[in-house]
């Protein structure tokens, strides 16, 4: 594993993606797969598309890079209709990551990453430098460059998939259940790293998942689709959890949505410097732990307040009532 890479400023600024009354009907199907979808993904934000299996998530995503063509409406990226752009150059400006990764088995990791740079005629030196930079970015040892995909674990392959998608620094990324095939530990690890990486590289991302918890974790905003490709609700995780638009969304985000909201904030955010005095007793949690962890710690210890620590420093105490107040308020 290599050191944390330097944050880099993107060569190309992110662009917003706008779905404008988009309809997609597959031939021979009675109902549309995407029905009058209007949605704006703001530049630099991550939009998680969630919904039931067969709800049209993949279809909606593939409309953006024209792997599937819509029937009516329009989709624009940075204000330009995707139909006005040559499809090859459109796709080269969009990073594409799929669950099954789809690395080219006959190419080394370096060659996989370099496919598009090669087609764009980058020099060997530039490609090598970029490959090293990308391997660092996705936390893969540079020694992997010479290996073949079959020699890598699933998690490592998906890191390469990410690196390959990022190769030419596209302003837009499309990701279809990218971590869905990974074991829970690897998934959490790569999710965290992607969040971290995303804060360094400014991209507009459409992230498809069927897992509402993953959507809450990864998305700046969440679009909930219902069967038939109809948008049920679009908003921030906290908005969806606090105010689900209807029973369908309430059901989809889960009956434990109150608890889920606890995951959205950290103890640091609610610990008040002038709050409860620290009597030095009872359990403690790290300031960057979520409220959910705080509540769990508190319950496990059977106390009614918990110390919040930041390294050796005690920031204060948080009570059960404070935790309750933090999530019962309408929005955060």
């Amino acid at each position: 594993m290599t050191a944390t890479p330097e944050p880099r400023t993107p060569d190309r600024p992110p662009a917003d993606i706008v779905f404008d009354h988009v309809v997609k009907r597959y031939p021979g199907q009675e109902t549309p797969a995407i029905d009058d979808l209007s949605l704006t993904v703001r530049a630099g934000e991550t939009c998680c598309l969630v919904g039931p299996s067969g709800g049209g998530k993949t279809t909606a995503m593939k409309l953006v890079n024209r792997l599937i063509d819509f029937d009516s409406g329009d989709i624009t990226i940075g204000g330009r209709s995707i139909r006005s752009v040559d499809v090859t150059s459109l796709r080269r400006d969009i990073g594409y990551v799929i669950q099954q990764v789809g690395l080219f088995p006959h190419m080394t990791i370096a060659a996989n990453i370099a496919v598009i740079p090669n087609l764009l005629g980058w020099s060997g030196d530039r490609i090598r430098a970029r490959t090293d930079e990308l391997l660092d970015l996705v936390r893969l040892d540079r020694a992997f460059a010479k290996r073949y995909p079959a020699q890598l674990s699933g998690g490592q392959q998906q890191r390469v998939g990410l690196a390959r998608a990022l190769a030419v620094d596209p302003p837009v990324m499309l990701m279809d259940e990218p971590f869905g095939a990974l074991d829970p530990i690897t998934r959490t690890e790569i999710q965290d790293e992607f969040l971290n990486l995303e804060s360094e590289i400014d991209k507009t991302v459409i992230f498809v998942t069927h897992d509402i918890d993953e959507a809450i974790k990864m998305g700046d905003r969440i679009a909930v689709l219902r069967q038939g490709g109809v948008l049920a609700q679009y908003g921030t995780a906290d908005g969806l959890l606090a105010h689900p638009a209807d029973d369908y969304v309430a059901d989809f985000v889960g009956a434990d949505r109150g608890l889920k909201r606890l995951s959205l904030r950290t103890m640091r955010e609610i610990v008040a410097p002038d709050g409860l005095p620290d009597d030095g007793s009872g359990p403690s949690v790290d300031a960057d732990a979520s409220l959910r962890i705080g509540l769990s710690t508190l319950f496990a210890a059977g106390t009614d307040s918990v110390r919040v620590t930041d390294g050796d420093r005690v920031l204060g105490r948080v009570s059960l009532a404070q935790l309750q107040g933090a999530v019962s308020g309408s929005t955060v």
Partner: protein
Amino acid sequence: MTGLPAQVIPVFSGTECSPDDPLCWSWVTGNWSSVLAPALVQHVYITLIAVVAGLVISLAAALFAFSRDWFATGFGGLSTLLYTFPSLAFFIAFVPITGISLTTIEIGLTSYTLLLLFRNALTGLRTVPRNAIEAAEGMGLTPAQILFRIRFPLALPSIMAGVRVATVTVISLATVAAAVAPLGLGKPIFDAIHTLFDTELVATGILTILLALVADAVVLGIRWAVTPWLRAAR
């Protein structure tokens, strides 16, 4: 057989070999440079020409046929037809056009490789991992780039499997072709068939088998060299 060189009886007088001796070593050493080695060399290039020509035609046809079903059906049908002709009749059929020549032999042998090589190449091009193709499309590779940069290399194992069988087939078929034009290892075999002398037949037969084994090993070596990803251990 008319039109063949006069010397159809192998020279075994002057050696201490008996016609009944199945493999008389002194004949082999005495005739190595005059009979066996030239026939072997001829056989190697007869085979090489046929396999390389067959491969070039089949690969071009398969690449062209990949996105054109009508051509895949047409060329597949033609190569099947060519394959079903009895080999000797096929060689003889071309004599009026191309004469008793290397060309006649090569036309026959090359035709025989087409079915195998074309089928294997086309199957190889078609059976690549779907995910890789989807990723390639999504990344913005054009259909031609996907065909040449992704599908073609991934078809190499299948193509080389075809080359392997085609090579061994051509080596054995080429001995039959000597009935039409006296070239290659078939020539000493046909010469010896008309005589009571076994050694020439047996020695040439063994030589043909050895050539097939060596050729097979060479093709395997090429396959090894062109598919490095297959031997990358986990």
